Each structure stands twice: as structure tokens, then as C-alpha cells.
């Protein structure tokens, strides 16, 4: 894979040749329509998002919640004697 990528870097800046005549390859590319709209569309199930792509409510849980008592939120856990106001 490595030689390919180095080659890419050295490549001349890309240019469109506006003078060139229409060739078969281009014509095929341009004039092959999709067999049906469905084949070039998202599957229907992706048209709806159950969450409307929204975040859930943040509860802002943090390490602090693990380090304090439920009943005395100001006192740190396990340091009863030193937890002066």
C-alpha cells in the first residue's frame, strides 16, 4: 500500500480536460440511470430516528458523586474526622 500513497503525493495537480470529446466511458457514467430510486436512497428504516438524534438527559454524574455521602453531601466519604467545613 505504501508505494501507491507516495505516488499519489507526487502526482500532478488534477486538471479537467474541457477540450476532450465525449467518450463512451463518460457517456456510460452520465447516462446510466439508477434502476430505481430505492437503490440510490437510504433504506426506509433510516428515515426515522427514534431518538430524533438527540442526547439523553444528562445527569452530570461525576467522580464527586462517588466520593460523597448521600446524607451529608458536604462531607467527603471516609474522612469523617478531617472533614471540617
Amino acid at each position, binding site marked *: 500500500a505504501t508505494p501507491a500513497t507516495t505516488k499519489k503525493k507526487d502526482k500532478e495537480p488534477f486538471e479537467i480536460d474541457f477540450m476532450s470529446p465525449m467518450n463512451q466511458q463518460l457517456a456510460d*457514467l452520465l447516462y*446510466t*440511470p439508477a434502476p430505481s430510486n430505492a437503490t440510490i436512497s437510504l433504506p426506509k428504516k433510516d428515515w426515522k430516528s427514534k431518538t430524533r438524534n*438527540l*442526547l439523553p438527559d444528562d445527569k452530570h454524574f461525576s467522580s464527586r458523586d462517588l466520593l460523597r455521602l*448521600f446524607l451529608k453531601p458536604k462531607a467527603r466519604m471516609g474522612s469523617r474526622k478531617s472533614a471540617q*467545613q
Partner: protein
Amino acid sequence: NHVAAVFSDAQKSNTGHRKLVINLRKIQEACCYEPLSSKKKQAEYDNDEDEFNTEVVRCVLRVLPIKKSETVGDRIVKFLGIFLRVASEKDNQLVADHDGALPETPTSRLTNAILNTLLQLLSTKDKIVRFRATQISAHIINTLDTLDDQMFHLLRLALLKRIHDKESSVRMHAIYGLSRLAAELDEDQQDEDSDDDDASSGVLEKLLNVLQNDPSAEVRRALLLNLPLTPTTLPYLLERARDLDAATRRALYARLLPALGDFRHLSLTHREKLLRWGLRDRDETVRKATARLFRERWIEDCAALPAATAPEEETEDGKKKPSVTKVADPSLEALLELLERIDVANSGNTGGVALEAMSEFWDGRPDYREYVSFDSEAFWDEISPESVFVARTFNDYCRAKDAQGDGRLLDMLEMKMPEVTKFGFLLEIQINRLIECVRGAASGGPDGDGDEEMEEESVQREFIVEQMLHMAISFDYSDEVGRRKMFGLMREALTMPELPEESTRLAVETLRLVCGDDRSDKGESDFCGIVLEAIAEVHDTIMGDEADKTKSSTGEESFHSARSEVSNDGSASRSKKSRRSNNDDGEEEDDDEEKAIREIMVNMKCLHIAQCMLQNIQCELEQTVHLVTMLNNLVIPAVRSQEAPIRERGLVCLGLCCLLGKNLAQENIELFLHCFARGHASLQTIALQIITDILTTHPSLLAPVASSGHGDETSATISATEPSPLLKPVLKTFSKSLKSEDVDVQSTGASALSKLMLSQLIIDPDLLKGLVIAFFDPETSNNASLKQALTYFLPVYCHSRAANAERMATIATGVIGRLAALREAFIEDEDVEESEMVTLSVVGGMLVDWTDPRKVIGSSEEAKTGKLKVEEGAAPDSDMIHFVLAEQILEKLVTSQTSKDERKVLFSMLSKLHLAVSSPDPGLLRTVLELVAEAIESKVASDATSRNALTKIQTTLLKLMHDIATAERGGHG
């Protein structure tokens, strides 16, 4: 060919476009306009025009197969846009004399020719062609002022098909084109309600649908910034404040909202939500954008003079031009209005967003910091919820900065704030006004219905007092005069039964602060003494009144009557408000009821003060006589009360007392376990919290106890221990909590267990398994607290300690088995979508990650990267964790019946294990190797991938084995 040459040059850079546009225009003019106005040659010119158009279309076609990543493509698109705009302007100038409807011009014909061609290609099979065709169409729509009606209609239909294209880049440009069409249709709607009405709502409705549902964040973001701002679209746009994608949220706060105009047009709910979501966003840049919005835009809406409000000017790419309007001078009135507009009386309470908003405000507005001042009489005379909040948050901000080492602000604060003694007098005035107001509201109007105005005012007064108390808690009380003033004031305030609960809580905290700590004097015991006196007084005041009225005065000591006979009257559980109900009614029954309600009120109030006090002390309960008295006379009776609110509050107080004495805790923990077993949900939650706090504070309660033959305390007896008798019921309680139907009980149980497991007080693997299953169980999908707590806890737990990760490894296969069963049952349920439950492979991946030895703190891997230095020789024990997991998985595969899905996940987990460690434990290595051989032999692997996983693991292990053998031989030789 000149046209192709122009296009060829145009792809090289954007800088030459101006000149090239002129060139191309010249060619076009030469083809389309006759130098002399002779009608005979018209046909010839038409012919030339056709040729010109064909040539341009031909060049456009050459762009279509150009990949999205090639910039030359975009340059041509841009060039084409500029040309069409310039050319049509010039055309229109030439025909400007003919008034009325816009006539057909050479350029409009050219545009139609291009768009007609592109229309066919919008549904090409090739995605690049589809992308370019959509891009060019959308760009033309957005560049030109007018379009042919017929074309307009066709484009709309074709682009609408593309808003659900497979490729997000196609969708992006389809909506880009349609947003403009929708905006135009919307304008039309104003004056004519024809068919366009339907068409417009049709397009807009579809776009709004995409805004909510498109899986690509880029598409949603593009829509957010391109949809017209109308009352219809606004709610949908604002909803993106919670979009899954941070950049989309940022776009809303940093671009859409600043451009929206006066924020006061938003509803109060929207203002509050936007501020709350933005300031508390997970992403820092969103938080910053919100802070700027608040302190730079919203305040300006309130502060700017009418003359200064220039219309919003924006350049095309949405960047604001350097603001010409001067920032308005600081104004207290504007700030007060801003606070009123975000309903500070509500959002300024604890947990409300106004605190954060103001902290950001002060941080970014040094001009306002200079400007405000709070030491004038007038400021405090005319105090309002808004103005007191300005003072309170300024005080908070300056002190927080001081704590971070910036002392200058503290000096500034002192200059602007009344001194402590003076503040004490000011607070006293406000407390008195509040009390008056509460009394007024309680005594009610002439009809005894309560005075609504008074009630409203008392809410405001309450807010003012709370804010001032918050300030008081932050003060420095080294000045003795000020300290005494505040001490006296708080002592007095606590004896007032009318003081509302939150104010009471803050007053207790202030009192604790001014009493000083125990190192200098006996601060804490003074504090207890004063609060207990206040409780007695509150009790006597209320019950004394009652006694006079009912003429049944009891001479008993206050606490004894506080115990009360409320338990006799179960029907009396009424809300506080009923206390104001008819007093003068002579009926005896009503009198009794009145009395019972009053007693509940008194008890609730006394218990509340006690609870606040208990939260602020740390002494040994049993050595403090006052506290024991309170426990026996106030708390214990409350716990036994028939009234649920009293009982719950009593239990909290008892729990707090237990934190102050191990013996008391030991005696009562059974009671709390019983409350959980028998209580309703809210009682269960409280019980869980109390039990957890007790175990945390007195870890020895769960320690193993010496079994029988009560020992002399020598080390010889250590072996003769058995688990604490409390362990089993405690484990059972937590296990039950995780299965509770009540979300609060369940999430409290989970976070309680998180705490206890992190501190190693509970190491039960079954409970860990329970937590992991609760985490993945679809039943808990609506319990965000539980999910988020466990999202935080599980990796922290495993990665902080090798033993924890190993424990996780031992339950992993059990978890997979249970979840496989759950998933099977889940999918069978027809009402649900399969995607709503995680797949087993996701679960497996997470289990492997949690147990990854390289992620455990102190692992040899971590030591290698230099993150943490491991002492030489102290071999970290994390290396073997994935061996344990491998053993578990193979064991399961070889010995148990497993479903196909389950086996698949187990094999995929096997292939992800990290087993290449430097010095494996030979015993475990051998065991795993034997299990691999057994697995291969018994052919549990039914497909190639699984067989490969086994072979791969066997190779790795054999190599390790070989290394060990070599090392041993080397050592012996």
C-alpha cells in the same frame, strides 16, 4: 474553442475568476446580441446562442465525474455561479426598460439549458455524478434571484427525491437547494394562498423531518444553518441544542442564536432550556459559545439603546462582520432585566442554571465588574430577587477567583460590599420582612383563603433571604463584632417557626460557621446546644399557641410533647397549606383535626432543624448528652410515627445519628434493612442511602467476626473468623434494589453499590454481575441516572485495580449467557425493535475492554509507556487477567450448552484477548492451553472464523510455553 479555454483556466484558481467571467460574458454577448439591430440576422444569432449554450453545458458535463475531494470541481461550480449571476444582471440591465414581468434573456435560457440537463442526471446510478449534479443545481438556485416557474417546480420535485439519498453529500446539497426554495415559498405564502401553500408546507415539512431524523450530523447541521427562521421552524431548530453531534450543537449556539435577533422574543421556557443545556453541555466549546451568547448578546438586547441596534449584518458564509455598533455601557437596569428574563427567582435556586450563567457573565465582563457596587443604602432598600442575585453571584465569583489565587478581585469585593456587621443588620431587616410576610400570607385575607399577593411576595422575600445567607456563609468572621452580630441573628432566626426550610438550612450552616471549629474553642458543642434550644423554642412557640386555644395546656417538657399523639389520627395527613384552613369553626371534630395537623407541622419543622444540624457535626454521639436526649425524645418517636412524612424524616435523622456512633449504627442497621424490605419506593430509596452511608462511615460493621471461641487477640485466632452476620442481608438488599421497578430505587441501588464496590467494602461477584446486567438490560433504557452512573463506574472500577478487573473476567461468561437469554426473549416481543437492545457482540467487546490488562493502572504495559512507575520486582498482577477470561470462555464452550449467538460472541471475544505477556503464570498458561486443545478436539467451533480464533490462540500460547521452557533451560544450563 474559447468557452472550453475559459473553463480550463477557471479550474486553476479562484483569483482569476473575475477576469474570466468578463471574458466569457464577451463571448456570450458576441453570440447572443447583434451588433447592429437588424432583424434579418436574428436567426443566425439564435443559432450562435444555441451553440454557446451547448458548449457551456458540455463543459458542465465534464465536471460531473469529478470526485468530491478534487477542489478543481468546486472551483468550476463557483465560477459557473458567478458567471450566471453577473450575466443575468447584465441581461436585465439591457432589458431594464421593458417593465413588467422579467423577460426571457440569453442567460435565463442558458440557465434553463444547464438545469434541464442536470435534472436528468439527479437520479444517475453513479454517486459522483449524482453528487455534482445536485451540487451544481443547488448552487445555481442559491446564486440566482429568479428562476423560471416551470423549472422551479421540476427542481423541487427532483431535489425532494434526493433528500433521502444514500450519500450524505448528495443529501447535503439537496437540502441546501431546497432550503432556499422553502424560504421563497414561505414568502410567497404571505400574499397568496394558492397551491404553493401545500407545496411550501410540503417542502418545509420534509426538511424539518430530515432535520430531526437524518443519520448524518453534517446534513442536520447544514439544514440548521440554512432553513429559514420562522415561527414554524424555530422549535425544530432550537431542539438541535440537544443534538447528538457536538458541532451541530455548537453551530446553534455560536451561529444561529447570535443571528436570531432579540432573545426576548423566545419563550421563557426556551430561554431557560437553551441556557441550561448550553452551559452544561458535554462539550467545552458549546459551553463557551453559550457563555458568550449570554454575556455578549443577550445582555446587549437589554442594554442597547434603540439607536444602537443596527440590523444584523452577515456575510454569506455566516461570519459576522466586525461589529460597528459600540458595546452598550454597563447598566444595572439591563442586568436586572436580563435576570428577570431568565426567571432568576426560579433558575437562581440551588441547581438552577442562573448561577453558572452569572459566573460566566462576571468572567467575561470586566466592565460590569468595575461598574457594580453594593454598599449604598439605596441598593439594599430597594432590594429585589434580581438585584440580590447580582450581589450574591458577584460575591461568589470574586471569592472563587481568590481561591484560585487571584486576590485582586477580593480587594475589589471588599470595596464594594458592606462590612460584615452592617451586612448582619441588613440581613436582619430582610429576615424580619420575610417572617412578616409569611405570617401575613398564613393568616389570610378576610375570607381566610390566604392572600395570594402576600404569598407571592413571601416567595420573593424568601429568595432574597436565601441569597443573603449564601453570601453570609462565604464571609470571613475574624472580625469579632461582625461574628457576634451574625451569631445572635442566626440564633434568633432559628427560633422563628415561620422561617422557611431552605432558609433554615442555610441559617444552620451559617451558625455552624460562626460558632468556630473545635480546634480553637468548643465550637461544635456550642453549636449543638444553640440549635437544640432553638428546636425547643420552636416547639413551645407553636404548641404554646395551640395550648392557649384548646385550653389543654400541657406542662410537659418540650420534647415529650413534641413526641405528640399524631399517631392516633391517621386521617390527618394533609398538606401544609391546610394549616391555614378555617380556625374559627366551632366544631370539635375540626378542632381535633386542626390540632393533629398542627402537631405534624411542629414535628416536621423540629425534625428539619435537627436534620440540618446533624449534617454539620462530627462528634461522637454517645459522648454528647444533648444529642442523646434529642435522639430519644424527638427522633425515635418520629421513627415510630404512623405519619409517613414524619417517619421518613425521622429515619433520615436516625441515619445521621448512626453516622455519629458505631454502636447506634449496629443497633439500627437491621431497622433500615427492614425499611427497605417492607417500605414503599421512597422509603426504600432513603433506606438504601442510609445503609450505604453507615457502611461507608463504619466499614468495620461488615468485617469478618471471630467465630465462637472468643479469642485472646493474638494472630493465631485470625483464621477462626466468619463473615459478618450483616453481610448476607446487606447483599440481598442491594441485589433486590437492582431489580426494583422504581427508577429511583434502582438507580440509588446502583450508585450505592458503585461506592461500596470502589471502596472494596463489597466484593461480591454476583452483585457485580447484577450491575453489569442491569447496565445492558433493555428494561433500564428509560433510567438515565442508572445508565450514566454505570457508564462512569464500570470502566473506572475495572481499570483502577487488577483484582476488580479479574473479578469482572470471572463473571463475563455468566453475563453473556444471561444477556443472550434476555435478548432472545426481547426479540420475540413484537412491540419492540431489535435495535433497542445492544447486540451481544457489543457486550462482548466491552467486557474484553474492561478486562484489558493494559488498561489497568499499574500494569506492566502502563509502566512501559512511562505513565506510571512500578517498583522493580513488584510484579503487577494484572498481566494474567485475560488468561482468566480465556479460561472462563473456553470452560464455558467446552462444558456447557450454548446457543449459536452466544458461541459466536465467545469466539470473537477469544480472538480479541491480549495474551502476549512477558512472564505468564505457567500454571494458568498450561490450563488454558489444555482447554484450547479440548475445544479443538471436541469441535465446538462450527465455522472457519471460530476455528481460526482457536488456532491463533493456540499458537500464541505455545510460543509463550516455548519461551518459558527456553528460559528455564538457559537458567539451569
